[in-house]
C-alpha cells in the first residue's frame, strides 16, 4: 500500500482516481445528485402528459418525436427509468455511497475506509452502470419499458431490457463492494475507546444498511442472470408452458414461472426499502440530537430497533404479492411479519418525537428538514399498513395509493433526510456554511409542493385509479371524479422543481462565498467535528483519536459548555 501522503498528487490522482474516502464520497454525492435531477426531469415529462394529455410537451418536446407529444411507448420507458434511476442511481448512492463514505470513517475516528482501492472500484462500477443506463435511451430499441420491477413475461419480450439487466449487474457489483467495505471498516477501524454503544446512531444505521445490501442484492443478481438467459439464450425460467403473446404461442420449452422472478426480485427489493430509509433515519437522529441540545432519547432502543428492522426486512417480501394467488397460508405469514416490522419503525419515530420534548430547539435549515422528515415518514409508514393486510390490499393494489405511500416514505421522507445531511455536513466538507436564508427558501416551498404532489395520489388511489396509465385514467368511469387532481399534482411537481433552484444556487455560492467556519460550527459532540474542515487528505485527523464518551452528551450537568465532545475526557 503506497497511500503515502507525502508524495505530490496530480489532478487526476487527487480528484478523479482518488482512493481517499472523502473524495470518493464527494464523487458519489455529485453523480447521484445529478441522477436525482435527471430522474426528476423524466417524471416532469410524464406529469405533463398526465395533466395535459396529447398536448406537445414544452421545452423537451423536440426530443420525443415530430409532434412533441409523449407517446405511450416512451411514457413506459420514462416510468421504468424514473424508478430505476431514482432508487439505484440516485438515493442509494447518495445515502450510502456519499454520506456513508464521507461520514462513517470520520465518525468512528478512522483514517480511511478499510479497503481504499475497493472503494474506488465501487464508485467506478457505479459510474459504468449509470452510463449503461443512460446510453440505453439512445439505443435503437430504447431504454427498458417494463417498470423498475421488470416483471416477466412482459420484460422478456419488451425491448431495451437487456441493457437494463447489464447495467444492474454493474450497480449490484458496486454496492456489494461498497457495503463489504463498510462492514469491515465499522468492525475493524473504530478508534480506541469507540465501543459499539458509543457509535453514533448514523453509523449504526449504515452498518445495518450494509448488511442488507450484502445479503439482499445477490439474489437479485441471480434473478438478473436468469432473466438475461431468458432473453439472450431463449431459456424459459420465467415463462410458463403455452404462453400466448401477441396472438401467437411463444416458442419456448416452458414450465417456468413468472412468480419465481417476483420472489427473487422482492427478496431484494423489500430490504432495499430499508436501505433507502435507514441512512436517512441515521442523519435525522444526528441532526435532532444536535439541534435539540439534549441526548437522543432512547439511544439503545433506537439501535436495537434498527437491528431488528434489518432482520425482519428479509421476511416480509411477499406482501408485494398478495394478488398473485400464492395462497392463504403464505399471505397470512407475510401479513403477520409485515405488522411486526411496523413496530420497530414506530419505536424509532416515537424516540425521535420524544427527543424533541422539552428541548429548546434551534430551527436551523438541517433541523427544519429533519423535523419535516418525521410527519412525512409517519404518513408514508402509516399508509403502508392497509397495503400490508391482504384484505385491504385487494382494493388498493397497483393503484395511485401505492405510489403515494412509497413516495411519502422516499421523497419527502428520505430525500428530506438527505437534504438535512447536506446542510448539516456541508461545513465539514468545505469549511463554509450554507446560507440559512436560501436554505429556508428551499425548505418551505419544497415541503408544501411535495405534499401537493403526493397527497392527492391517496384520493385517486382510493377511488381506484390504477398506476402506470398513460392517460392518467381518462377512459375509466370510476376515475372521472378524481381526474381534476392530475393538473394540481403536475403543477405542484413543476413548482417543486423551481423550489430546488435556491438549493443549487446555495451550494455553488456557499462553496466559494459562504460564511467561513471552524471545525465545529454546530457545537456537535461526534468525532467528525474534531477533524479540521475539510479533514486532512488521506488521514482525516491531525493526530491519534481516542474516544471517552457516548455520542450524544449534550447539556451535561456541571459541564462548562452545552456539549461534551466524544474525544474530550
Amino acid at each position: 500500500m503506497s497511500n503515502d501522503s507525502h508524495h505530490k498528487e496530480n489532478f487526476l490522482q487527487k480528484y478523479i482516481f482518488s482512493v481517499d474516502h472523502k473524495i470518493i464520497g464527494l464523487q458519489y454525492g455529485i453523480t447521484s445528485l445529478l441522477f436525482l435531477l435527471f430522474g426528476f426531469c423524466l417524471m416532469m415529462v410524464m406529469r405533463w402528459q398526465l395533466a395535459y394529455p396529447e398536448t406537445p410537451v414544452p421545452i423537451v418536446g423536440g426530443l420525443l418525436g415530430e409532434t412533441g407529444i409523449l407517446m405511450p411507448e416512451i411514457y413506459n420507458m420514462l416510468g421504468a427509468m424514473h424508478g430505476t434511476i431514482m432508487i439505484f442511481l440516485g438515493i442509494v448512492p447518495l445515502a450510502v455511497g456519499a454520506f456513508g463514505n464521507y461520514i462513517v470513517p470520520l465518525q468512528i475516528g478512522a483514517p480511511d475506509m478499510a479497503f481504499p482501492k475497493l472503494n474506488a472500484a465501487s464508485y467506478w462500477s457505479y459510474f459504468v452502470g449509470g452510463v449503461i443506463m443512460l446510453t440505453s435511451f439512445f439505443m435503437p430499441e430504447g431504454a427498458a419499458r417494463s417498470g423498475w420491477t421488470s416483471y416477466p413475461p412482459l420484460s422478456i419480450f419488451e425491448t431495451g431490457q437487456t441493457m437494463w439487466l447489464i447495467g444492474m449487474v454493474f450497480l449490484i457489483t458496486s454496492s456489494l463492494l461498497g457495503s463489504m467495505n463498510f462492514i469491515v471498516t465499522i468492525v475493524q477501524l473504530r478508534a480506541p475507546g469507540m465501543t459499539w454503544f458509543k457509535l453514533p446512531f448514523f453509523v449504526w444505521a449504515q452498518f445495518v444498511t450494509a448488511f442488507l445490501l450484502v445479503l439482499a442484492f445477490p439474489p437479485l443478481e441471480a434473478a438478473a442472470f436468469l432473466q438475461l438467459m431468458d432473453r439472450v439464450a431463449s431459456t424459459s425460467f420465467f415463462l410458463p408452458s403455452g404462453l400466448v403473446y401477441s396472438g401467437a404461442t411463444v416458442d419456448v420449452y416452458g414450465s417456468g414461472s413468472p412468480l419465481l422472478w417476483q420472489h427473487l426480485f422482492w427478496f431484494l427489493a423489500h430490504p432495499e426499502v430499508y436501505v433507502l430509509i435507514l441512512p436517512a433515519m441515521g442523519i435525522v437522529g444526528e441532526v435532532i440530537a444536535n439541534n435539540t441540545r439534549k441526548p437522543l432519547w432512547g439511544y439503545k432502543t433506537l439501535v436495537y430497533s434498527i437491528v431488528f428492522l434489518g432482520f425482519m426486512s428479509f421476511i416480509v417480501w411477499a406482501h408485494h404479492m398478495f394478488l398473485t394467488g400464492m395462497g392463504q397460508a403464505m399471505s397470512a405469514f407475510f401479513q403477520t411479519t409485515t405488522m411486526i416490522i411496523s413496530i420497530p419503525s414506530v419505536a424509532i419515530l416515537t424516540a425521535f418525537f420524544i427527543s424533541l420534548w422539552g428541548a429548546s430547539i434551534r430551527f436551523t435549515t438541517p433541523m427544519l428538514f429533519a423535523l419535516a422528515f418525521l410527519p412525512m415518514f409517519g404518513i408514508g409508514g402509516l399508509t403502508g399498513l392497509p397495503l400490508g393486510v391482504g384484505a385491504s390490499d385487494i382494493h388498493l393494489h397497483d393503484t395511485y395509493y401505492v405510489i403515494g405511500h412509497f413516495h411519502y416514505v422516499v421523497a419527502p421522507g428520505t430525500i428530506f433526510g438527505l437534504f438535512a445531511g447536506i446542510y448539516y455536513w456541508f461545513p465539514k466538507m468545505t469549511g463554509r456554511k450554507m446560507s440559512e436564508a436560501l436554505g429556508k427558501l428551499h425548505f418551505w416551498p419544497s415541503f408544501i409542493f411535495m405534499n401537493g404532489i403526493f397527497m392527492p395520489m391517496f384520493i385517486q388511489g382510493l377511488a381506484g385509479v390504477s398506476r402506470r396509465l398513460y392517460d392518467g385514467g381518462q377512459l375509466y368511469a370510476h376515475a372521472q371524479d378524481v381526474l381534476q387532481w392530475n393538473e394540481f399534482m403536475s403543477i405542484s411537481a413543476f413548482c417543486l422543481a423551481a423550489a430546488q433552484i435556491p438549493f443549487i444556487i446555495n451550494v455553488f455560492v456557499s462553496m466559494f462565498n459562504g460564511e467561513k467556519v471552524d471545525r465545529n460550527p454546530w457545537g456537535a459532540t461526534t468525532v467528525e467535528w474534531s477533524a479540521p474542515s475539510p479533514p486532512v487528505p488521506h488521514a482525516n485527523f491531525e493526530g491519534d483519536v481516542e474516544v471517552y464518551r457516548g455520542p450524544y452528551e449534550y447539556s451535561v450537568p456541571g459541564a462548562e459548555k452545552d456539549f461534551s465532545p466524544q474525544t474530550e475526557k
Partner: protein
Amino acid sequence: MQIPYTIEERPDTGLNNSKLGIWVFLASEIMLFGGLFSAYVFLRMAAPAGDFAYWGSKLSIPMATVNTLVLISSSVTMIMSWVSLKMKDFEKYKMYMGLTLLCASIFLVIKYFEYTGKFHHGIYPSSSTFMGIYFTLTGLHGLHIIGGMIVMGYFWLPAGYKMWTSEPEHFTNRIEVVGLYWHFVDLVWIFLFPILYLL
C-alpha cells in the same frame, strides 16, 4: 498513511481486515448461489413430473466425478501452498500453487468437453428448463473458477515473489484469503454435483 489492521489482527475482534472482508464477501456469494439453488428447487417443483430427472440423465456422471476429485485435490494443494508460506518455503509454495492452477485448468478442460458434447447432440440452454439451469449454474461456477485462477495466477507470477520479498506476512495473508475463496468455489461444486448429476 497506513490503514490499521491490514496485516496484524485487531485484538478485540481477532481478525485482520481482509479476512473479515472475504468472509463478508463469501456471505454474499452464498446468497447469490442460494438464490439460484432456490430457483432450481422452485423450477423443479413447477416442472412436469420426471422432467428434471429425464434431462439430468443426459449428463455425464463419470466426467463430473473426475471433476469433483480434481477440485477437491486443488483445495488440498491450496492449503499446502499456504502452509508452505507459513513455513517460509517459497519454492514449495510455488509448486503447490502451480498444482492448484493445474487442477483448475483440468477442471475447465473437462467442463469444456462436457459443454461441447452437449452442443454436438443439439442440447442447448433453451432445450429444457433443466438444461437452462444446468448451464446457468455451472457457467456461473466456471466464471468463479476463472476469477480465482486470475488472482492465483497473479500471485504465482513474479509479482508474487516481489511481494513475498518485501511484505512476506501481507503476502501470506493474501494467499490465505484467496484460499478461503477457493474452498468456497470448491464447496459450491460439491452442492452442484448431486443436484445436477445425481438427483
